[in-house]
């Protein structure tokens, strides 16, 4: 029975990281109709940048963390928005999809070619000291991951629900044209969403790097999990992406432990198919008007 709780924390820990990537993914979809196929690489690149700051420039940890978030925000937020999204957003969904697929390959193989095809170790942020609560042993790292993600996601929720910026984002998500008529600068808002997403993926990167090691191709898996989370939870709800991320993390952890490691990706997919058949807008999603 005790390992049920241990796995719960482990699942929530990895799930909250997926949730952060999924929330950014959903925000991009809502404000700009971008299906970001490079979301996984948006997590991998900051992890590499963090390694650069830590081991090459020898920054102290906190400074390296801040620098990574800033670099990611500028590069994956501002630059991507200015160079790709601004030009392609008028053309509809598909050209942007193809462009983000190209971008994901570009980031992945550039890291492999110009940096290293090997896995880089990453110093653990939190101590791996086990802590005992009653008969149950938790990893301090996992507990801290969950708490850290909770603070970040909580802050984001406050931003969306309590600030003018957040209201503007909601307005654009509901109806772009109307929001534009009401005086919201949609393009600037899309830019801000991209920067917000890049900051989120940078935080996710720093939490996931000590778990997975930093390798050029881990983005494929992370990107898929973010997709799964967004579909399961609902494409038009930040809360949905949060729930979806946690569910994917839990299902993955429990099925790997109790059922079969080989099929651990399949269980999340089975949930997805069930959700799509029974409630295609996602568990917490709201039906969007059709066509």
């Amino acid at each position, binding site marked *: 029975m005790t390992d049920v709780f241990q796995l719960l924390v482990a699942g929530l820990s990895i799930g909250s990281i997926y949730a952060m990537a999924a929330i950014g993914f959903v925000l991009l*979809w809502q404000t700009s*109709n971008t*299906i970001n196929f490079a979301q996984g690489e948006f997590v991998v690149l900051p992890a590499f940048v963090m390694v650069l700051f830590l081991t090459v420039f020898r920054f102290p940890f906190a400074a390296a963390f801040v620098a990574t978030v800033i670099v990611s925000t500028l590069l994956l937020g501002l630059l991507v928005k200015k160079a*790709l999204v601004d*030009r*392609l957003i008028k*053309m*509809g*969904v*598909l*050209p*942007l*999809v*193809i*462009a983000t*697929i*190209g*971008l*994901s*390959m*570009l980031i992945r*193989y*550039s890291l*492999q*070619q110009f940096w290293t095809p090997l896995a880089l170790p990453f110093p653990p942020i939190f101590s791996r000291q086990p802590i005992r609560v009653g008969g149950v042993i938790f990893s301090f790292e996992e507990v801290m991951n969950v708490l850290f993600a909770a603070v970040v996601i909580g802050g984001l929720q406050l931003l969306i629900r309590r600030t003018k910026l957040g209201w503007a984002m909601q307005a654009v998500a509901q109806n772009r044209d109307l929001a534009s008529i009401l005086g919201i600068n949609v393009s600037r808002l899309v830019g801000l969403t991209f920067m917000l997403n890049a900051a989120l993926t940078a935080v996710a990167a720093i939490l996931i790097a000590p778990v997975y090691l930093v390798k050029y191709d881990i983005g494929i898996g992370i990107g*898929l999990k973010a*997709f*799964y989370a967004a*579909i399961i939870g609902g*494409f038009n709800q930040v809360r949905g992406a949060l729930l979806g991320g946690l569910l994917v993390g839990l299902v993955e952890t429990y099925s790997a432990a109790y059922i079969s490691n*080989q*099929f651990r*990706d*399949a269980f999340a*997919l089975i949930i*997805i*198919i069930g959700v*799509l*058949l029974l409630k*295609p807008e996602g568990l917490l999603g709201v039906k*969007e008007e*059709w*066509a």
Partner: protein
Amino acid sequence: MGRWRTRALLAGAVAVLVFPVLLEQYKLYLASLTLVYLIMAIGLNLTLGYAGQISLAHAGFMSFGAYAVAILGPLGVPFEGGLLIGALFAFFWGIVLGFPALKVKHHYLAMVTLGFNIIVFLVIRNWESLTGGSFGISGIARPQWGPLRFQSDREYFYYILGWTVLVVASAHWILHSRWGRAFRAIRENEMRAEVVGVSLRNYKLMAFAIGSAYAGVGGALFAPLLTYIDPGAFTLDRSIQFLMMVVMGGLGRFEGPFIGAVVVTLLPELLRASEGFYLIIFSLAVILMMLFMPKGLVGVWDWLVCWITRRVVGPADPPAPAEPAAVLEPK
């Protein structure tokens, strides 16, 4: 104009028939692979380019054809039987997957098909007794009609060519029939199509299922090409490759898949000298193309055709207005 067009087409046909004689083994393989990809791309162009439904499961549908041929061949089923069964199986699953497409919007269909491709991959990798698991199946026989055998690479190339002609002709027929017009009407404006009496449900399902069946045919022809298949050939990456092929070629244009298949198959060969940089150059090319030619390479093709006709026929005869390429609007 018409006369010149016929001549150009005839010259092209003769070239395709004759040039394999001159090719050595590896180039012959590439030519055969291009034809297989062409069949795949035509199917996806039907689903996505004409009916506007995104599919990221094309490699999954391809595996149905490939494994049908590989599994049924040793049981004494002739190649064409395996091909037909594989295509029907893909058609059936196309209908099953197409159903959610009726209810949900663009991005959901992307996710459903993406998930389906991953599940297909996991099933063929883990169902070892049937598919050989990750070891795959080797020694897949090439087709044989009594004394007429398609054993050598060159003979098999002509065999694939025969099927390609059949596929191209059938796609051409579908697109110029009532169906093709209905598909286009759905792509342009679903609501309007429904109002003027196009049965959305049937046509959307059919567009998806027929595109999938073509993928099954392509897969069946792919299997004996190397006489070996394994799950690695049918990953999500492969599906994305087909998607890029169709979009790079030009969505919703008949010439699109031809251009896309040739470019995506031959570009890696041309960039071979750059070794590890190939994928970087390729992905850069994809991004730049989307930025500067979002309607695909078919635009270059149109320009070229226009230029040549003006040179050959003279400026008096303006070229027929090209059918506009599709751009899918966010719904």
